[in-house]
């Protein structure tokens, strides 16, 4: 239960300049409150200018940075609200109502904004690194800005992870609906599980866009996630935005060539590192590929067994890749957690500083005693010398 005493305080302050403060040596007071505040404002600015003139440029930079940060966080908020919409759409498990267009739209939007955000976050990080040089590494403004970027990155990571789970959900749901449709419209018994071609031609898909061009299969680039593992890079996966649209034939070739080099799930992280230069594709692209492959299916009314088998393989590939991506994201989550563990309690900083001070005090006292003992030694040697000289003078002179 907090008690707001702002108005009481303001009333008190306003009552002051009129009577009780004759000693005040200031500009003759103008009594309306608006003027008063304006004057104070000016004063403050003057003070600021006087004391901080040398630092002005770096503060201006900081100010810039703050506005950028605010922009980024606003966009993160927008993205997460879009994500919420997407979740809702995905969770509607209706068999016949299909919001593919809407979902696609949202996915594209979110993907774009995530890419955009990632770039801006990186830029902000660089800006901070630069400013640290001008402000000094441990200065409080720099710390503040670094913390801010850290928090933004964490939030961004969360949003991206949320996106991932939604995509996963969406894939599962799509598969489920396919299964259900098959159940309803009857399936041929002798086909393997993942043969997607068995959708009966009877079913009329209500497709608003109907893009007829055959678009490519996904190749999955795991390096996009792995940049996170590198100590120098940003902490977050960096989506390489370009989705590759290629003709299906060349696509198939590529697929054949890369599929054997895609590491197994149990493989260690290091095995991913060698493949930096293969064509990148991000998890969000998978979603789109899913969509598009669904559309393709409609076009493909005449079953071509070889081609379809290949597609089924590709599906599997995509699925296993999603799982792999999942591990990457998890590793990322662990990293974020570790980052959190570093500073847990508010006192920690102070405690550390305290112990440092104690340590330095100890060192100082040690040095002091050291010096003192040296001095004692010096005195001893000197006194012995004097005794010798005196005895020398007495006995030989």
């Amino acid at each position, binding site marked *: 239960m907090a*008690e707001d005493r702002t108005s009481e305080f303001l009333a008190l302050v306003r009552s002051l300049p009129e009577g009780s403060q004759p000693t005040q040596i200031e500009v003759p007071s103008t009594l309306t409150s608006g003027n008063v505040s304006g004057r104070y404002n000016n004063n403050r600015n003057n003070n600021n200018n006087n004391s901080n003139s040398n630092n002005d440029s770096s503060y201006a930079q900081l100010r810039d940075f703050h506005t950028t940060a605010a922009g980024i966080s606003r966009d993160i908020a927008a993205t997460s609200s879009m994500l919420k919409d997407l979740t809702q759409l995905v969770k509607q498990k209706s068999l016949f109502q299909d919001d593919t267009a809407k979902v696609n739209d949202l996915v594209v939007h979110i993907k774009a904004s995530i890419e955009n955000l990632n770039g801006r976050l990186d830029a902000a990080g660089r800006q901070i690194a630069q400013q640290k040089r001008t402000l000094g590494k441990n200065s409080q403004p720099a710390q503040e800005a670094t913390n801010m970027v850290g928090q933004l990155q964490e939030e961004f990571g969360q949003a991206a992870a949320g996106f991932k789970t939604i995509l996963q959900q969406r894939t599962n749901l799509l598969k489920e609906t396919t299964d259900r449709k098959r159940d309803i419209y009857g399936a041929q018994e002798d086909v393997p599980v993942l043969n997607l071609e068995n959708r009966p031609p009877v079913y009329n898909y209500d497709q608003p866009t109907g893009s007829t061009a055959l678009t490519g299969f996904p190749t999955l680039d795991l390096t996009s996630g792995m940049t996170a593992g590198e100590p120098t890079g940003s902490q977050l996966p960096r989506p390489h935005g370009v989705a590759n649209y290629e003709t299906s034939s060349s696509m198939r070739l590529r697929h054949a060539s890369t599929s054997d080099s895609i590491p197994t799930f149990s493989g260690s992280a290091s095995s991913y590192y060698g493949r930096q230069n293969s064509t990148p594709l991000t998890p969000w692209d998978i979603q789109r590929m899913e969509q598009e492959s669904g559309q393709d299916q409609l076009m493909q009314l005449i079953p071509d067994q070889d081609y379809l088998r290949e597609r089924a393989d590709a599906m599997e590939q995509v699925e296993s890749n999603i799982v792999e991506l999942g591990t990457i994201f998890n590793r990322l989550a662990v990293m974020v957690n570790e980052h959190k563990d570093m500073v847990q309690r508010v006192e920690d900083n102070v405690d550390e500083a305290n112990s440092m001070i104690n340590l330095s005090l100890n060192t100082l006292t040690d040095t002091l005693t050291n010096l003192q003992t040296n001095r004692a030694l010096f005195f001893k040697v000197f006194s012995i010398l004097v005794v010798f000289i005196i005895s020398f003078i007495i006995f030989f002179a």
Partner: protein
Amino acid sequence: MALSTSQITLKSSQLKAVYRMLAFNEDADAFEDEFSLPPTGSSHNQWKILIYDGPCRSIISPLLSVSQLRKRGVTLHLLLNSEREPIPDVPAVYFCRPTKENLAIIAKDCSKGLYGRCHLNFVTKLDRALMEDFAKLVVQTGTLESIAGVHDQYLDFVCLEQQLFSLAKKDSYVQYNGSGASEQMIEQAMTDIAYGLFSVVATQGKVPIIRCPKGGAPEMVARKLNRMIAEHPTLLRNKSSSLHRPLLVILDRNADLITPIQHTSTYQALVDDMLTHKANRVEFDVTIDASAKRPKTVQKKFDLEPDEDPFYSRHKFNPFPEAIESNGMDLQEVSAKEQSIRSKAAGNGVPDPSSTATDLANAVDSLPALLERKKQLEMHTSILQAVMDQVAARDVPQFFELETSLATGSYKNDASRAKADVLHLAADPAKGNLEDKLRLVVVYILTTNAKTADVDEVAAAVQEAMETLGEDGKPRLDKLGKQNLEAGMKAIGYLKQLRSMHMLPLSTALQEIESEPKAAGGSVFTSVFNKATSQATGLLAKAADRVSSMLGKIHKHYATRVVENLCEMQPGSEDDDFLYLDPRVKGDVDVQKLRMMNRSPVREVTAFVIGGGCYSEYQNLQMIANDRRTISYGSTELVDAGEFLAQLGQLGS
């Protein structure tokens, strides 16, 4: 003891208030849980800097970790009196005590224009005079613009657990029992305590009925508090809770000096007793490879989260051996789960890809949570081990047993046997350390009406035992130990003096044995325990054997009995002679008259002890809490036995 988080407790109310403060005192009720929180930096959750002083830091630190603060948009948290650099344009939230020095620092900050707008929050009431001074400063420096708001938060208490709080007043027992304290000092101390309690009441938001014994510090505090609540403009108007009024019981430490001194047997209390335990943080030294020539000692620090940590919240009130046993079992279970997940992840050659993929994904998702749990359990293992080492080295169970039987009055008719037993334990230099022996003597004085000569004899035996040479030929006490011995003797002298003035409640059965069958349950525990010993390994097992005798004895301490009587309105008990103050009613209320009416049952109780509380009392009180009744416990400060002994010693000198 695990409480659902939705329940409104003192801690959750305080947390809510802090959240509101961090949201610049705008209405932040919508964003109470972390998931619905808008991203930091947006218009509802701005970036800000938190600036606090020492006492306020100790209020915040058990409530919020750094990362939680970050989520609330706090990018930096700085001490008020540390050196601070300008960070322009960022709003600052000040949270500190309303003192002259603090206000001067704030005014200086404003005049330097360190930050953007300043939101001032004071932990208790900002006096009108101080406010006037501050206003003058602000006008002189011409920085009225930069002050965005002034709020009194009434949060002046440290909430360590859902139902445990402390006012963090140092040496509170000395403060009002010391002979050197002037009338004015005592008055000031009591006002401080009343302010603290008012914060508690205000945070709870309900007007309590105050009960306290007549005379002395409790009455003083109760009357002050009563007036504060009655004079407060908004608190009384809150009529929503008029049916079930909470009960606030204010007690005096002098009524029961034994509890903080006595040895204990439950997990949390032992941690507090054996290790350094402050504000939910445990510290202890661990010796690494003791077999090596130069054993290294490493200091370990752990933060305990009594409400979030499932193991701790389940076992903090359980007897120590039980905690050890279930720790072992839990750890095994978690390791097995982890193993199964890891093997699943490794065995990739399963042919059916569609189901394994999701399985795998789920398993991998659950792994971090599992690892987190394992980490927690391992932390508890090392804490348990450290406690065990101490317990085994000091023969704590023997002290515990003897003290318990003294306190429960088993020696009532046999003073000479009591003395013989105490003397036997006190004179044996191999058993326990100085503190343990002194505590035993204190309990002996407080529980029996042994003759002064007997007491002197026991005390002398302790002194003698500690001054004999140890096995390795070195004296048992270093310089510090000798000082402690002296202080302990002074404490004993003080208690003797109190006793001779008949100021101590000298009932031989200060703690009554619970008549429930739990007392007979010792054999059950032992059988369970045998199983545990076979599972545990090494030193833990050997030493745990010694603690097994700690089981099976549960008795109610003084505070617990009083609270129970007051709650159940037992006629002929404390209910009759305690004061009954109701802030809604002017003057005292006669309990006898109330008996005629139908009094509604008590749902919420806050027990408050003036002069220091301890974990064993807290645990004992929770025994009488149930579904219909929650009991919060608070005190001026939380002391362990050593600190309390030192305070007694200060009084003796």
